[in-house]
């Protein structure tokens, strides 16, 4: 039995999976971000993440448009990762700065069959291998990170086996901490040093990425936002309303020879444990077991990917770098607005599915 067949049959055996995951059928969504700067003082600036620039087999950008009263608006890109964002600027004295960005994209579910070599899988260049095994400012790959990872992957030979071991370790040893603001900043060294392995996707999937990179498995975080309910019966893995201002979610990928980039999401397994009704599920609960199998090798694409960047220096800003760009960001009078507080910033994000 190949891996896909195994996962499918395992999924079908438990209730949460209403349908086996499908590789057909693109869905199209429209996401609208509206940002306003209340109490503007001096020059105001806003940075809004744009959908992933490069089309791939699971997401295609159909374009974006903006309206508002910005004196200047432009596409800006982070130099190292090519993260794309809409940058808007208002001069001092501009009353009620505001901008609205509408983006359309198509997406379809994604699954990689690790039991079968994919002849279409692109080889990773030496430069990309170095890039995706390198540390970031928040994700070191030496010291306690590497020591921990070496212990986890002991006996594993291939990249897939190493990634699998790290994935299982993250699922077994971490927990979703609902008290963490936003998605967590992914300070994985502090997590390992303190032994506090609680967090959200930025922390738990950041931990997966750091551990993988530290043992030479290329890996990366993918930052985005949930746009629709899960079609597989998981209330915790989707959004139930068009208002998605607080639905940001990051995922992770690792690279395997012969398979290409492989989607994983150990943080969502821990989300199922914590949040899926009735809550605080056991790791052996069928819902958790099914999610755990599925989320090593597949993503349900009720989610928009923004970018894969780390250590983002916002153009035109003198403020500190961001660990990642997943939320609207802004500043007025050179003071950063709280990106994790949509009501104070303020911003709203809505999503709707478009049907022909």
């Amino acid at each position, binding site marked *: 039995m190949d891996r896909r067949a195994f996962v499918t049959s395992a999924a079908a055996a438990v209730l949460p999976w209403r349908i086996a995951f499908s590789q057909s059928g693109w869905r199209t969504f*429209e996401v609208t971000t509206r940002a306003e700067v209340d109490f503007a003082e001096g020059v105001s600036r806003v940075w809004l993440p*744009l959908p992933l*620039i490069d*089309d791939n087999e699971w997401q*295609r*950008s*159909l*374009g*974006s*448009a*903006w*309206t*508002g*009263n*910005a*004196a200047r*608006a*432009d*596409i800006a890109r982070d130099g190292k990762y090519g993260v*794309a964002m*809409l940058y808007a600027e208002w001069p001092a004295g501009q009353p009620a700065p*505001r901008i*609205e960005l*509408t983006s*359309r994209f198509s997406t379809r579910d994604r699954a990689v069959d690790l039991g079968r070599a994919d002849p279409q899988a692109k080889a990773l260049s030496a430069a990309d291998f170095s890039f995706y095994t390198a540390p970031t400012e928040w994700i070191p790959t030496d010291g306690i990170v590497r020591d921990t990872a070496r212990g986890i992957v002991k006996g594993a030979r291939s990249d897939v086996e190493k990634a699998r071991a790290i994935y299982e370790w993250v699922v077994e040893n971490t927990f979703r901490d609902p008290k963490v603001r936003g998605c967590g900043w992914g300070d994985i060294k502090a997590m390992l040093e303190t032994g506090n392995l609680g967090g959200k996707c930025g922390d738990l999937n950041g931990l997966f990425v750091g551990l993988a990179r530290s043992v030479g498995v290329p890996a990366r975080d993918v930052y985005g936002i949930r746009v629709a309910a899960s079609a597989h019966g998981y209330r915790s893995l989707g959004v139930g309303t068009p208002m998605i201002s607080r639905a940001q979610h990051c995922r992770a990928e690792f690279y395997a020879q012969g398979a290409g980039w492989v989607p994983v999401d150990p943080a969502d397994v821990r989300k199922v444990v914590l949040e899926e009704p009735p809550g605080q599920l056991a790791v052996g609960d069928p819902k958790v077991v099914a999610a755990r199998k599925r989320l090593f090798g597949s993503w349900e694409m009720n989610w928009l990917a923004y970018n894969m960047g780390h250590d983002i220096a916002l153009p035109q800003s003198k403020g500190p770098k961001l660990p990642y760009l997943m939320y609207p960001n802004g500043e007025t009078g050179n003071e950063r607005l709280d990106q994790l507080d949509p009501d104070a910033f303020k911003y709203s994000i809505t999503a709707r599915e478009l049907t*022909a």
Partner: protein
Amino acid sequence: MLRALSGALLLAWAITAPAQALRPWSGGATPPIELQDFDGAAHRLADFHGKTVLVNFWATWCVPCREEMPSIERLRRSLDGKPFAVLAVNVGENARAARSFVDAMPARFTWLLDRDTQTAKSWRARVLPASYVVGPDGRIRYSALGALDWSSDEVRKVIEGVMK
């Protein structure tokens, strides 16, 4: 009521949007365009060599695209008889959606369909409307991101400068 309110809000936002500016182009070579119109006829940007061409990427759902389009037609009319053309490239929509909009828009543009969005991406037209002024020699001279009042004296002078 809700729809009317949201429509009014959208309109209010759009009306307060200030004009963007034409910026000199420094983005390199001109990507090719070879796309079909509503009748299936193929058009290439290269066919317009010798003319100044405004390449405008748009979509029906893009509010500022819809709003700037009448000003593009006013510009075209003001340059009637001169070597100037407008290629209006719909991004990512089906012909029916685009055509229903165009039928209600009395503008003499060359309407093209970029269904797979690859042409828009090759032009780096990520945010709509995205417009490019291509000189008679085929080189991009200016670009504009966002809606522009194309019928303003300032913009027309820039276009006429490219035509010389």
